[in-house]
């Protein structure tokens, strides 16, 4: 399109530049703060030009919060959550969209209601489940008298136990157990033309073959989008890891480690001195991998979103 709108073009650039500033300036200031010495950072006005202490601060933040281990943990957790979500979401959505069987709508609603209640508001009981994943089933068996029956028949006590505290499984499973990805996949599968399925059926393809050979290749961008979203969702988790990990030295995650870098609010004991330069350096390290993922996957990410939105 060829149009001459110089004034509007100028306004456009100005507005976008402001947008850029809004997105970028805080990051820049955080970066600058991470390069200053403690004294420089506590002297107003706030500096706009980087100093020379970046590596010192990074090293200090790295050792203080033991970020090597934490980043590895975060990475493992995020990859597992992303992969788990993709696997679960795709097969669930597949069953919901392409099958017709009794109870389907009930199952569908059971899954979708989970979108409504975030982990934050049911975290204590969820913790109890994570401590023994089988506890709900044990309770059901106990209540129905099946445990008793088992004891009578075999002479052994029925005690199911699977403890997830301080484990990657514990970090991952409850985060996988929601419907976000399922929703995305369902939206996408609904857009798959019916002719495709009819053609496949005519070729004699069974459901699994249809899934493997047609749906999966079709949903690559969708997968990439979901992967990005879920990776970042998991990477940025805060409250759940805080609770389920008691062995912070070995199983702590990177975002949790932020707490170790700044004095907590409302804490009257322990005279923590906020050295913002180190805290900001830590912030940079913790945020970098997620930023990198979004920067690298951006094309897939946006395209995937568009695809699933149609």
């Amino acid at each position, binding site marked *: 399109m060829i149009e001459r709108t110089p004034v509007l073009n100028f306004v456009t650039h100005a507005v976008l530049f402001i947008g850029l500033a809004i997105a970028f300036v805080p990051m820049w200031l955080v970066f600058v703060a991470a390069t200053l010495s403690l004294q420089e950072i506590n002297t107003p006005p706030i500096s706009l030009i980087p100093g020379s202490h970046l590596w010192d601060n990074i090293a200090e933040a790295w050792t203080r919060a033991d970020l090597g281990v934490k980043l590895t943990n975060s990475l493992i957790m995020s990859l597992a959550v992303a992969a788990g979500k993709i696997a679960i979401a795709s097969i669930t959505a597949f069953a919901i969209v392409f099958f017709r069987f009794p109870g389907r709508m009930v199952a569908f609603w059971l899954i979708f209601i989970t979108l409504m209640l975030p982990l934050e508001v049911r975290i204590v009981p969820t913790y109890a489940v994570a401590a023994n994943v089988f506890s709900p089933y044990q309770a059901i068996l106990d209540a129905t008298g099946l445990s008793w029956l088992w004891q009578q028949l075999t002479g052994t006590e029925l005690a199911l136990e699977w403890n997830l505290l301080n484990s990657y499984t514990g970090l991952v499973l409850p985060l996988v157990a929601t419907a976000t990805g399922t929703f995305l996949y369902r939206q996408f599968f609904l857009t798959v033309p019916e002719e495709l399925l009819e053609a496949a059926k005519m070729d004699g393809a069974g459901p699994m073959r249809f899934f493997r050979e047609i749906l999966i290749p079709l949903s690559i961008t969708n997968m990439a989008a979901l992967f990005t979203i879920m990776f970042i969702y998991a990477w940025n988790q805060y409250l759940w890891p805080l609770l389920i990990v008691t062995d912070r030295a070995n199983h702590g995650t990177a975002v949790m480690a932020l707490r170790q870098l700044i*004095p907590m609010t409302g804490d009257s004991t322990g005279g923590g001195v906020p050295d913002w330069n180190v805290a900001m350096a830590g912030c940079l390290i913790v945020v970098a991998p997620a930023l990198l993922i979004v920067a690298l996957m951006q094309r897939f990410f946006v395209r995937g979103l568009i695809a699933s939105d149609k």
Partner: protein
Amino acid sequence: MNRILLTGATALALFFSGAAQAQQRIKVELWQGLTGDLGSAVEEVCQRFNESQKEFEISCPTQGSYDAAVQNAIAAFRAKKQPTIVQVFDAGTLDLMLSDAFVPARRLMEENGYKIDWANYFPGIANYYASGKGELFSFPFNSSTALFYWNKDAFAKIGKSEAPKTWQEVEASARALKSAGYGCPMAINHDTWTLLEQFSAIHGQPIATKDNGYGGLDAELVINKTKFVDYIKFIKKGLDEGLFKIKLPETGANIVQAFASGDCQMMMSSVADHGTVGKTAKPEMQWSVAMLPVLEGTKRLNSLVGGASLWVLSGKSKDEYRAAAAFLNFIAKPESELFWSTRTGYIPVTKTGFQHLKTQGFYDKPQYKGRELALESLTATEVTPLSRGIRLGGFIQIRKEMRDALADIFAGKVSVEEGINAGVERSNAILRRFEKTYAGKQLL
């Protein structure tokens, strides 16, 4: 050749027996709520215990904060994954005391064959963690009390060489400091531990009916009818006149930092911060500590202990209890207390520990000088019903309500009376709710 073989074999045998022994060590966990330097100090204590014997091995992971240590321990207890020992701060005491979730200190030690002289614990410290009859439930560990910190250099500028003993003197000094050009004569925060709890104890003012709750769960807050109201009015006036300044961690400088950096010339804070101030203040800065000031014409009573104690949780094995008892016995030894007090600003909790520190010349060393005042403050008088401690349910929430009330008052949003009355009303609702939750339970 033979010889080499032999040594090789011996080494191998030794190696295996060593490995076997290492495997046999009974492992227990202590969940602590301290972090940073103080957290490392606790870990060093655990390390020392592990090195002192071969039978047990304790690990002491931090949970991030006092609150988190309690939260996580509760969640873990409900899931039957609790640690053997947990560090619980003063305000979390009553919830645990009313539960069946712990093994009382005395029973634990008796069952494991340790003879502890319970009278050896300072009564001012032990009473906080004991039943109404004085039987210890948990082990006092990191104990502190509040002290008054003052900058000697600044006071020299106004011609004073002594710490103020009364609040009237504090006010006069603050005025003089302000005229001398000091922007922040005294740093104040919203901490109820110093402003409300310590103040009430040393002034003999009740915080709640029923001897601050020791007499029953139906206690009610009464701080809107005591000298506390006048005291807060006094503080508020000082704030309005610029004699006191609010310093909070939320925005960069808490009172300890503001004092250590020389920005503020006086503050009230825990003796545990003595080490922090020493480490972070400029070496040439002259400062000292004193007992908290009192209002003119008041007879000083003992101050309250703060910090946390170690609770042994129920539902663990005999071996784990043996390990716990050994550890708790270890930390009560005078040498351990010396290490602990040297490494941190916390005070010894037993009389023998205090004696040991004294004979070792601990309090004569310049960097520790003044810390004995904490014990003097805690033992200033015989413990009275009002300075014994505070036994109120939901005390974590009550502290929060009162802190919010103070914040509102100091920010000028409400008058002193309005603020305190509102805080009291809300706190009493919390107390009633707590009473209902524990209906049928009796205080021990």
